[in-house]
């Protein structure tokens, strides 16, 4: 910048007044323009680099989450090994950590919730995708169903505790099991309500995409509405509907607060679906701040790691299925 050649191209601001008076206006504007374009190019490079750094940081964030979980649970992985997954006792006092009761609890609540919610979410999907795709009422229904997903889970939990638990308790007295109220069945009902929107909204958009000439061909052969739905729409959208169910499952597995509040929180293996239990997420929520020695803490983090890996796999398979469907 200090050489005589460069002073023409990039004059320092303090000298510019003197330089202007000596030069014709034309050259001044050209030096300014060159200076400006240098600045622009530099800014452009900075901007491009920032974007790349941000994208890299995104990858680093997820890798970091995974590595943190793995690193923090090594203590537990070393001490219990693979037996951790089917160890039947969870006793922090005696340092025995077996996750089987929680894994069983998670699977029971999630699949029970799915079994309850699937008829409802498929009904919503068919209702909005096939029977009544337009109009004010379907629109209202669609938005209301989406609002189900918006209600905070802690509110579901509180409502469940105050309203659903007494109802379930009286139901349990009627069928003659121990009336606790809190338990796997209650959490499954709450979860079922919470996961309806995920399968429903994906299913709706999949059913929307069924080509109308397929449906018309079936109608022209004399098929009734139900027969079209069963033998054209369902087979065509099979993978999409399945992906919706997977997304619901992913939500149900990881749901923490609502379940923690109504499941009863015991580390015993649940004897029936009406018994209290615990899920992986609810154990973490309950015991994480109480974990007083490293192995205990690390065992809880290993639960988190298992939860993380399972939900990642489920979501990836779901996304793949949707991607395949929309590309065809």
């Amino acid at each position, binding site marked *: 910048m200090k050489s005589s050649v460069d002073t023409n191209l990039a004059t320092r601001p303090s000298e510019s007044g003197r330089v202007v008076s000596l030069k014709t206006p034309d050259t001044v504007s050209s030096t300014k323009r060159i200076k400006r374009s240098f600045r*622009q190019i530099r800014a*452009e490079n900075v901007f491009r680099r920032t974007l790349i750094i941000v994208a*890299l940081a995104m*990858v680093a964030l997820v890798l*970091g989450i995974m590595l943190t979980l793995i690193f923090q649970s090594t203590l537990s992985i070393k001490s219990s090994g693979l037996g951790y997954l089917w160890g039947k006792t969870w006793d922090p006092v005696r340092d025995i950590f077996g996750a089987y009761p929680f894994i069983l609890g998670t699977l029971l609540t999630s699949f029970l919730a799915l079994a309850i919610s699937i008829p409802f979410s498929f009904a919503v999907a068919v209702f909005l995708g096939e029977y009544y795709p337009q109009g004010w009422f379907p629109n209202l*229904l669609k938005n209301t169903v989406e609002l189900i997903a*918006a*209600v905070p889970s802690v509110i579901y939990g509180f409502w469940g505790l105050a309203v659903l638990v007494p109802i379930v308790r009286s139901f349990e007295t009627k069928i003659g099991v121990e009336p606790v109220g809190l338990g796997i069945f209650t959490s499954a009902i709450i979860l079922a309500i919470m996961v309806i929107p995920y399968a429903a909204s994906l299913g709706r958009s999949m059913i929307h995409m069924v080509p109308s000439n397929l449906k018309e061909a079936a109608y022209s052969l004399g098929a009734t509405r139900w027969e079209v739905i069963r033998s054209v729409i369902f087979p065509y959208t099979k993978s999409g509907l399945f992906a919706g169910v997977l997304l619901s499952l992913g939500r149900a597995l990881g749901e923490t607060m609502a379940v923690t509040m109504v499941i009863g929180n015991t580390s015993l293996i649940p004897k029936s679906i009406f018994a209290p239990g615990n899920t992986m997420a609810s154990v973490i929520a309950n015991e994480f701040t109480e974990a007083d020695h490293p192995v205990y803490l690390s065992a809880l983090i290993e639960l988190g790691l298992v939860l993380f890996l399972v*939900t990642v796999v489920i979501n990836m398979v779901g996304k793949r299925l949707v991607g395949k469907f929309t590309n065809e």
Partner: protein
Amino acid sequence: MISMKNNVKYRIGKSTGFQALTILLACSCVVPLIFILIYILQAGLTKINWHFLTNLPKPVGESGGGIANALLGSIIIILVASVIAIPFGILCGIYLSENRKSRLAYWSRLCVDILQGVPSIVIGIVAYFWLVKPLGGFSAISGSVALAIMMLPIIIRSTEETLKLLPDSLREAGFALGLPFHRVVLKVIVPCGISGILSGVMLSVARIAGETAPLLFTAFGNPYMSFNLLKPMQSLPLLIFNYATSPYNDWHDLAWGASCILLIWVLALNIFTKLMTRKWKVQL
């Protein structure tokens, strides 16, 4: 002939039956939501008054008291989370929409997908090890970071999807005028897609406003008023969880009032976003 007629009748009847069943099941989905709304509004609205909004919770045994600390704490934690997540999310969304086929974009997109499915409690654990342990105690800022991580996927996705839909001619017009890349993006593309980006931001705020699990081991909760980001801070969902699971009726009352406020807040944000997206004709 007669049997065929009967058969047709049977098939039509079956079809109508299933239609009725579908309509019934579909409409009954809404019933629990309406029950919850009515119940919470009934239990909560009577508790809400000026005293409730401007006072601290009273200890067990004294009636009255309010949730001022939780209300302010929630707002502070969400604001800090937004400050962290919004610029990062929008920039990442811009990268993904501008570099659709690069290898980094593929991995980055994959990570966004993964992050979207990660249970919130796991993010709480990670935030605990990243911030709470090094800082030596529970703090509001660690809660904000956990919530910011949860906001990212929604903001990134909506930014990417909105910007992708913009016609290439806009971009090309900018370049043809000799504009550098950053000005094309910041002065042409982002303003054109601002409605979609804003909807994504509002949606993400609505989603994290009710999150409790990531705050359990980060912001932790605090019965007193606190403005210090490095100290534990109360928030609405935490207060509801702690008081709802306590055995005291006075605290249950506080929790009902807080639930009512949280519910109205979250639903209003969601409905507002929906109306805006319809008005702006954004597809999310």
